[in-house]
């Protein structure tokens, strides 16, 4: 009958197992797959491997526009793109995405830049 008594007394004097969430947040673990936060667009070569590897079809790479676009609400955060990227330019963040009012896509476009040595416009 009194099998739980020991546990009950232990629980009375111990700290609660839960956190008061909005006020007290747990630090995410190192190397947790929180979200795909974006892409280091200057390093990107627009090869489109991430787009082909993505199991959720969340990434769209456009070579003409020089743009990289992710639908973070479609993404299943498997990090297959991060592993497949030959330039390692996709940024994986440890923090989770917060709720949003709109399901906006994250689009990053490479702007033209001038290389210092030749003065030529490259993209």
């Amino acid at each position, binding site marked *: *009958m009194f*099998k*739980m008594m*020991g*546990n*009950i007394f232990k629980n009375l004097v111990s700290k609660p*197992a839960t956190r008061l969430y909005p006020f007290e947040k747990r630090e995410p*673990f*190192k*190397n*947790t*797959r929180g979200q795909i936060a974006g892409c280091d667009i200057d390093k990107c070569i627009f090869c489109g491997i991430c787009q*082909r*590897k*993505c*199991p*959720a079809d969340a990434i769209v790479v456009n070579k003409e526009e020089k743009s990289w676009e992710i639908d973070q609400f479609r993404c*299943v*955060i*498997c*990090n*297959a793109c991060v*592993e497949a990227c030959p330039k390692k330019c996709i940024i994986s963040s440890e923090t989770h995405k917060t709720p949003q009012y709109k399901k906006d896509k994250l689009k990053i476009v490479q702007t033209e830049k001038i290389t210092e040595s030749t003065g030529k416009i490259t993209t």
Partner: protein
Amino acid sequence: MSSTIIPFGPQHPVLPEPLHIRLVMEDEKIVEAIPAIGYVHRGLEKLTETKDFTQNVYIVERVCGICSVMHAMAYCQGIEELMNIVVPDRAKFLRVIWAELHRIHSHLLWLGLLADAFGFESLFMQVWRDREKVMDIMEETAGARVVISANAIGGTRRDLSKEQMVKINLTIDEIKHDLEQVESVFLNNYTVKHRLVGRGILTKADAIELCAVGPMARASGISMDLRTTGYSAYGQLDFEPVLHNDGDNYARTYVRLKEIYQSIDLIKQAISKIPEGEHLVPVKGMPPKGEVISRVEQPRGEVLYYLRANGTKNLERLRLRTPTFANIPSLMKMLPGSQLSDVPLLILTIDPCISCTER
């Protein structure tokens, strides 16, 4: 006596997932039960035909949240057999460690749900508090809590460091200690036993005839555990299937409870025996034309994967049979003759995973 039909589900407080059963009643007694599934069909088998065979690992993991590692493991083992890939030994042990961690969290979840089903809320919280420790290990080692995506074709995607293994060892010791405190409540408490002992008896003959799998079969005295066939690294570990002969709710609780201890022991063995080396070998080419059947023991029983490749990057057919699907006939055998108030508990003791069953 005239009979009444009571629809049970698809929405019911005890069921996290939609399972519909039409119960033909005479007074409080059930005379017939007619199941109906099909409320959460997602078409994942069809989806796998349109995707690359490497992408399918992420899809089959999403068949079931609770046993995602084992689904990916079964699929990867099938493809590896088809492509003649030799998986490194370290990857096999890593797969076993993650799979057994998943078994622990699945059984703890089930024990909590059982306690909740007979109204023992505080016991439910005790058990789920320990489950949270396993989820934290998952997040720390594999990067996610539930669908951990640890498996890849040719090995595992991540490796475990020495410190992480020490931490896993310490945490499962804690879980073992905590579980020993609540074990006697599940097995010896008067009120709990009143709801479990002698209810929903599945005899050994019935279990064999209806092809029960997993803890259902083992609780009816059938020594059937796919891990004893020695797939992955299980052949190098020492264990015996947990058995009970009664075949009632109590036996099923007993088997699942003792399997947590068994999993803890298996993880400890795997950590002590794990060899050094690579954890992933690169995969080249496409799966050649052919077909393969791959089987793995999940927390709920045996899962069966049938894969047919045609030499391209897409699979021609992927078919999977989940343990819950195999256990539903046994449930239909158990229901007639029992009381209406026992129905939620009887459904729960087969550990149903409906979205697994419907895919």
